[in-house]
């Protein structure tokens, strides 16, 4: 923003609404540049001042101009007209100019060409005072100006509508504008103007009748349709209309001569001009193609719930009051509007439309009303079932639409940070029939938002059908499933965090019952992932890609106690742990190191809490968890550090092997073959390290890495970004004393 503005003429001090006389506006202009603009811009400033004087002269000329001055013969008129035009098109006119110029243009004093030119120049720098508009409308009544000037004025008024500072008095003229509807030429423009002016209270039965008479006379006219549909919006109990689907615009483009100038001026005075908003009729929505009338995949447009009738005598007052209070959703465009009107908003007549309206989703987040969710539940449940492309036979041609719909539902769930129960039911019903291919990303994403509320049936409804697909599908599918289950776990844990925070201590009892249910559900999910991961690694022959997704899952699991305050820790099964430990890839190994470090931190914290007994612990980790962790840590340290894995690993599925057997492998130095130098995932680093440390040595003597060099090598590894290894070694390997250090070295040798 800043550089672009510099290249343009100095920013103008735009008059405030409170400044009403021209001199104040000038003063404001003059003083501002001295404060803010560097001195080398002063020539520019002087130029501005001179144009300012010229504009003042022109205005005072037009104020006093007499009847019928010919343009051709009068050089003064020519000059002032040119001044007004050039200033208007360059930076817009000040509010005070409008009164004078509108008066002269509509008074019929000057020739039509002059009036036209003046009107075309009426581009505001900031706002247009309402009073000047009102007085020019009154001039319109006197009939002094020609038809074409009147038309041009109306078009100007429509274009500039948003620039008028207040509109109360203009609203009072509603009836006057309405009366001009009869004029055939003006009718389209008057309709447009009325469209802009119409409020709830403007809609009266006699006006509706007038419009319907007019409709009977002129037939289908888009401008009439637009106005009538707005009337319908405010008073559906009086009039109704069905708009044709293909209609694109309801009003002819009336901002022609001013559009470019407004854009140019706005670019210069960016902050101060109101944003021109395109007119949107909320009552129609383009549809891609004709479908069944009860097809629900087309998300309805947000339109205000007008299902309150105002006819019956006694109820009338109550309802009228409420109706005037409520804010029509069709007008809700911005977040500030939402904040201003949040107390008088109503949900749309069809709840499904909130899905595509982020503002309404914000609103929904604030309002905790059961009926909102119930309406959404029914609509979404029916739509998902009816439109599902793999459950309903004839739907396959609508797959793209269904994909979009699932996508929208997923985005809404992310926005609201909660899953819909209708989605959950849909998944349970449709997953057994799913081929694992149709709408795959969308379906798997929806899985990640299955709510935590129900504690049973997950196995038969979700895990069993998912496992079947998982084992029979591609590597990529497996990774996608793991990813969505990881997200599911994360969402559950987040939910738990939020809800355990909000619940008070008095509800401790009910919390405990839910907590045990929650722990069971989370544990079930983790065991399921552990199981399918083990099988998948076997099936796919341990690819790094798959391992990455599996370890990514365990990065959440290992931290549940500390990060999510959940009294549950489950270690990965051996079928996951050992493939990661013996992986060919340093990334997996590093990830494993990090995970084991986090397990340690969580277990240590749990133990400390248990010992200090600050809280009465309902849940504590079983000794089996600690034992399992210790087995893994022995295996890991034995592998990576002390080169004793083959002897010390006590895990039943571990690396323990007899010496005889190891000798048969004919591998020399088998003991050290998985330490941080010889490990297949690390050997590349060791090689590069050797090259740097002994540039001249070409024998690649890995045994040189010991003693002080061992420490250097570690520093080298850390510097290569093996952060997981670093925290693991620093936490799990006792290197504090030199003694243990040398012991490690001894083991090394």
């Amino acid at each position, binding site marked *: 923003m800043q550089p672009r503005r510099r290249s343009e003429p100095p920013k103008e001090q735009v008059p405030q609404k409170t400044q009403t006389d021209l001199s104040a506006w000038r003063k404001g202009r003059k003083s501002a540049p001295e404060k803010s603009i560097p001195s080398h811009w002063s020539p520019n400033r002087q130029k501005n001042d001179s144009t300012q004087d010229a504009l003042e002269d022109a205005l005072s000329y037009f104020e006093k101009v007499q009847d019928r001055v010919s343009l051709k013969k009068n050089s003064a008129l020519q000059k002032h007209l040119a001044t007004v035009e050039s200033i208007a098109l360059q930076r817009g006119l000040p509010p005070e100019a409008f009164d004078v110029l509108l008066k002269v243009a509509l008074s019929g004093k000057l020739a039509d060409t002059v009036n036209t030119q003046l009107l075309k120049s009426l581009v505001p720098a900031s706002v247009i005072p309402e009073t000047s508009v009102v007085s020019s409308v009154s001039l319109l009544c006197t009939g002094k100006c020609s038809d074409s000037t009147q038309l041009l004025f109306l078009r100007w008024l429509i274009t500039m509508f948003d620039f008028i500072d207040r509109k109360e008095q203009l609203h009072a003229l509603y009836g006057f504008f309405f009366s001009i509807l009869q004029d055939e030429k003006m009718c389209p423009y008057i309709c447009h103007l009325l469209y802009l002016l119409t409020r709830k209270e403007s809609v009266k039965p006699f006006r509706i009748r007038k419009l*319907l008479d007019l409709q009977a006379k002129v037939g289908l006219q888009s401008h009439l*349709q637009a106005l009538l549909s707005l009337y319908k919006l405010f008073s559906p109990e009086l009039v109704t*209309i069905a708009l044709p689907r293909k209609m694109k615009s309801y009003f002819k483009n009336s901002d022609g001569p001013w559009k470019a100038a407004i854009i140019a001026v706005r670019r210069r005075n960016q902050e101060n001009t109101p944003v021109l908003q395109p007119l949107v009729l909320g009552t129609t929505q383009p549809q891609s193609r004709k479908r069944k009338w009860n097809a629900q995949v087309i998300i309805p447009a947000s339109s205000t719930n007008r*299902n309150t009738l105002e006819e019956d005598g006694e109820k009338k007052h109550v309802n009228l009051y409420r109706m005037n209070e409520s804010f029509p959703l069709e007008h809700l465009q911005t977040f500030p509007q939402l904040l201003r009107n949040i107390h008088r908003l109503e949900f749309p007549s069809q709840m499904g439309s909130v899905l595509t309206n982020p503002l309404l989703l914000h609103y929904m987040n604030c309002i905790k009303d059961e009926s909102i969710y119930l309406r959404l539940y029914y609509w979404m449940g029916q739509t998902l079932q009816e439109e599902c492309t793999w459950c309903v036979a004839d739907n396959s041609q609508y797959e793209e639409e269904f994909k979009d719909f699932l996508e929208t539902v997923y985005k809404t769930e992310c926005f609201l940070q909660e899953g819909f129960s209708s989605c959950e039911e849909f998944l349970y019903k449709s997953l057994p029939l799913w081929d694992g291919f149709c709408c795959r990303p969308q379906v798997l994403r929806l899985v990640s938002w299955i709510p935590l509320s129900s504690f049973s049936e997950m196995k038969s409804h979700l895990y069993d059908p998912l496992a079947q697909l998982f084992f029979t599908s591609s590597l990529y599918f497996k990774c996608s499933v793991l990813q969505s289950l990881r997200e599911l776990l994360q969402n559950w844990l987040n939910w738990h965090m939020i809800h355990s925070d909000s619940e008070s201590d008095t509800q401790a009892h009910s919390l405990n019952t839910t907590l045990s249910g929650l722990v069971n559900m989370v544990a079930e999910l983790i065991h399921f992932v552990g199981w399918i991961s083990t099988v998948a690694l076997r099936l796919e022959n341990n690819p790094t890609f798959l391992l990455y997704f599996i370890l990514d899952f365990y990065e959440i699991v290992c931290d549940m106690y500390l990060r999510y305050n959940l009294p549950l820790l489950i270690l990965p099964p051996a079928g996951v742990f050992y493939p990661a430990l013996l992986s060919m890839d340093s990334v997996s190994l590093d990830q494993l190191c990090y995970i084991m470090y986090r397990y340690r931190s969580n277990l240590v914290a749990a133990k400390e809490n248990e010992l200090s007994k600050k809280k009465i612990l309902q849940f504590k980790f079983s000794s089996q968890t600690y034992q399992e962790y210790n087995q893994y840590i022995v295996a890991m340290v034995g592998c990576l550090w002390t080169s004793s894995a083959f002897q010390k690993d006590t895990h039943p599925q571990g690396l323990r092997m007899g010496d005889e057997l190891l000798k048969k492998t004919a591998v020399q130095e088998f003991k050290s073959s998985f330490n941080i130098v010889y490990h297949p995932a690390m050997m590349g680093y060791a090689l590069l390290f050797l090259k740097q440390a002994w540039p001249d040595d070409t024998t690649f003597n890995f045994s040189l890495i010991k003693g002080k060099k061992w420490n250097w090598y570690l520093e080298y590894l850390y510097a290569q970004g093996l952060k997981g290894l670093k925290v693991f070694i620093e936490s799990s390997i006792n290197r504090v004393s030199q003694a243990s250090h040398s012991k490690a070295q001894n083991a090394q040798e």
Partner: protein
Amino acid sequence: QENTDPHRTAFLLRKQWTLYSVTPLYKFYNSNLRDYARLLSAFIAAEKQKGLAVEVGVELDLKVAVSSIPDLKGSDRDEAAILVQLSSRSRASPKNSEEKLVWSGCFCCVFGDHLSENVSDDFTYLPLFLVNGAESYTSIVGMWFQKTFDCCFRRLAINPLNLSWMAAMWTGCKVDKTTSAVELVFSVPCLPYPLDISYAIHPEDAKALWDTVQKTPGEITQEEVDVFMDCLYSHFHRHFKIRLSATKLVKVSTAVASAHSDGIIKFLQSKYLTGVLMLLTELAISQIQ
């Protein structure tokens, strides 16, 4: 059932009704039925002449009546049924012209009260919607209800399992005059051309078979239904060497009612109207939950 006035519900008999399930109507009030009629009639007029605005409340070619039928329900906790009728009147002689019924739709709930348990008063539970008349009117009326009461309509198909239940149940019903045969229509799948097999049984024979199958009167189990159908299938196989169990049951006609798998029903006995509607209500509820 006893308090059901047969005259108030007679309009349902001997006509074909297309079945829909409807989710609960939001903010539907029985006190506003006349206003709903006015709005709906203007809406239909506006939809038929797209783009032209229509004043609400004026006399139009099509008259809409929305009425409540308190007799048509199962228990006291069911909502009263709502009947929507469209009738045309000719412009030529508006005063003494006869109104001709062109379309009717009926929202009802018969013993579906467990659906409305512990839910808010803003909703009206009438899960079953029966329609007789042109699809074009169904779509306009349906659209208006969807927009106004935030509900969803779905065609209610009847699967073969439920059809066989109907066959068994209705066969066992006592009907004063045994008029029509029990007819089952089967469709043969996987053929290049459509082939339907119609299997008609004398109603007394069918009833005799059912009576031997049913163990406790007034109670039916899935097992009994299966046995009943298997007997019919094996009888058919003995004669024609066709295994009907490999085909799809698509239609059941009895003296009580006839039902097609596409979700079309015809009520024939006012005595058993409530019972049939109860079964259909149950199917509708299972579709919206």
